């Protein structure tokens, strides 16, 4: 069973003459143990796809399933719980809380989700892999763009979700770091059996993907 399924999903905004269709009959599957790349230019519907896949928005038509759970059947608190337990977000901007140190970003997860997170040793290993092990006492405002992005990746992985949804995770990284992040996402998918979905316009990530979807004007095709 796919970890994440979107079947015939459409999303419209506005009414009547102002109506805009952002996603048109999108079909998508992400398997555990695979990296799925969704590539498209700005305005193509990538972000809307990501918010619907993550249960933040509901589609106008179609079905979204996380494993065997239909998102349409879940209400507010249940959706929050599902996001907290099953889905990790790596966001493009504002993805870290500015008044929490790097270590506190993880502590916050422990506070709201005491079980099922990475162990201290696993976290130390992850931070080491990302090259940010020495930054745990720093605040986001003291980090470079690349460091911030890597801490955000670690933050998303810390809650040990089955599915990771990443919004432009390499936007602020140089080519060397893109390779590190790409390899990390790939290893996570393979070694920890995670379903990783990356929306990006960074073609450098293609070499780490198992499947690549292209999205253009709301239509998604398997590349």
């Amino acid at each position, binding site marked *: 069973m796919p970890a994440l399924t979107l079947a015939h999903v459409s999303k419209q905004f506005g009414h009547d003459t102002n109506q805009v269709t952002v996603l048109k009959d999108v079909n998508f599957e992400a398997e555990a143990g695979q990296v799925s790349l969704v590539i498209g230019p700005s305005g193509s519907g990538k972000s809307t796809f990501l918010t619907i896949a993550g249960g933040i928005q509901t589609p106008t038509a179609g079905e979204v399933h996380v494993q065997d759970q239909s998102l349409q059947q879940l209400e507010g608190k249940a959706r929050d719980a599902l996001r907290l337990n099953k889905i990790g977000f790596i966001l493009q901007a*504002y993805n870290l809380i500015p008044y929490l140190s790097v270590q506190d970003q993880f502590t916050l997860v422990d506070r709201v989700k005491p079980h099922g997170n990475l162990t201290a040793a696993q976290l130390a290993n992850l931070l080491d892999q990302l090259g940010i092990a020495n930054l745990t006492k720093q605040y986001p405002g003291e980090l470079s763009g690349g460091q911030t992005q890597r801490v955000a990746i670690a933050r998303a992985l810390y809650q040990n979700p089955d599915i990771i949804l990443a919004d432009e995770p390499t936007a602020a990284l140089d080519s060397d770091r893109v390779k590190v992040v790409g390899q990390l996402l790939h290893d996570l998918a393979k070694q920890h059996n995670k379903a990783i979905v990356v929306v990006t316009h960074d073609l450098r990530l293609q070499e780490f993907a198992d499947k690549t979807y292209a999205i253009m004007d709301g239509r998604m095709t398997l590349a």
Partner: protein
Amino acid sequence: MFLALKEIRHEKLRYGLIVGMVVLVSYLVFVLSGLAYGLAQQNTQAIATWDAQKIAVTSDANDSLAQSLMTKQTAKKVTLTSHEAYIGQAGVVAKAKGQPKLSAQFLGINRGEFIYRKLIVTSGHKPTTARQILVDDSFKTNGYHLGDKVSLGATGGKFKIVGFTHNAKLSVAPVVYGTLGTWRTLSHVTSDFKAGGIVSNRSDFKLKTSDLKTLAMSQFINKLPGYSAQNTTFTFMIAFLMVIAMVVIAVFLYILTMQKLPNYAVLRAQGIPAKVLVTTTISQALILVVGGLVIGAALTAATVLVLPAGLPMSFNLPLLAGVTGGILLTGVLGALIPVRIILHVDPVSVIGG
């Protein structure tokens, strides 16, 4: 609480300014409450020491003991028990050789009656003859001593201070206790008059004569010259201050919350329940307001230490608790205003592109 404390620690200047504002508001409210209560006490301290419940004054005295003159004929219609005492009040100017003139309230009482028995002497003894007086401690702070011979007006001659008593103030003036005979002299009335009125420490005290009007002590106190006006003025000042404080604190918390919405949107996207964010906002407001109140209270205590002794400032625990609770409630109400915005924060806003 975790998020609330972390944010306060990280944004020290921003939250320091808010705490500073709460400190100033609470300091002002505490000081004003202290002054209001102190002034109110100086109107009624003497009455409070008697534990009196009722007072009877003549019907034509407009509820004022100083204006009340009860004839012996009227007094005959009344039977007093050990719970009642005759009393007469006269405004006097006390003067002793080498000492400053002091405006005071002379209270004439009978030896052996309950007011006399209630008087607590801090030094010396209670008067035993018509030429002896017991005076408020403030005489001592103004340089008067035991044994000083004091004149209480153009007539009446000299009276010897034989004792000092604590908390003896009436209508913001120190009290001089003496006999009803002296009261008659100072009030320029003949021996046809028994006293000014009757005070009772029984709550069911009621007279059946139409010549006298029985008042509850609270009614009598409210009729003291200037008492109600002072209290109303202070009450309105404190109430307006509380309302303004509520608006200011609410505006500050609202602005702070609006600034934090992008962070809250990230947390919501990550599945952090809205309840956690609401709890954070309210607990943060409580931390700020409690912090401000504690510092404000400490500042008030420090101010009391350096204020001149004569300043009528006094504190009453229930009143302080009420004021503190009011400010605390203000903070919580301020924090509750943006709750609806937090509950509806849109995590979609942080997923761009």
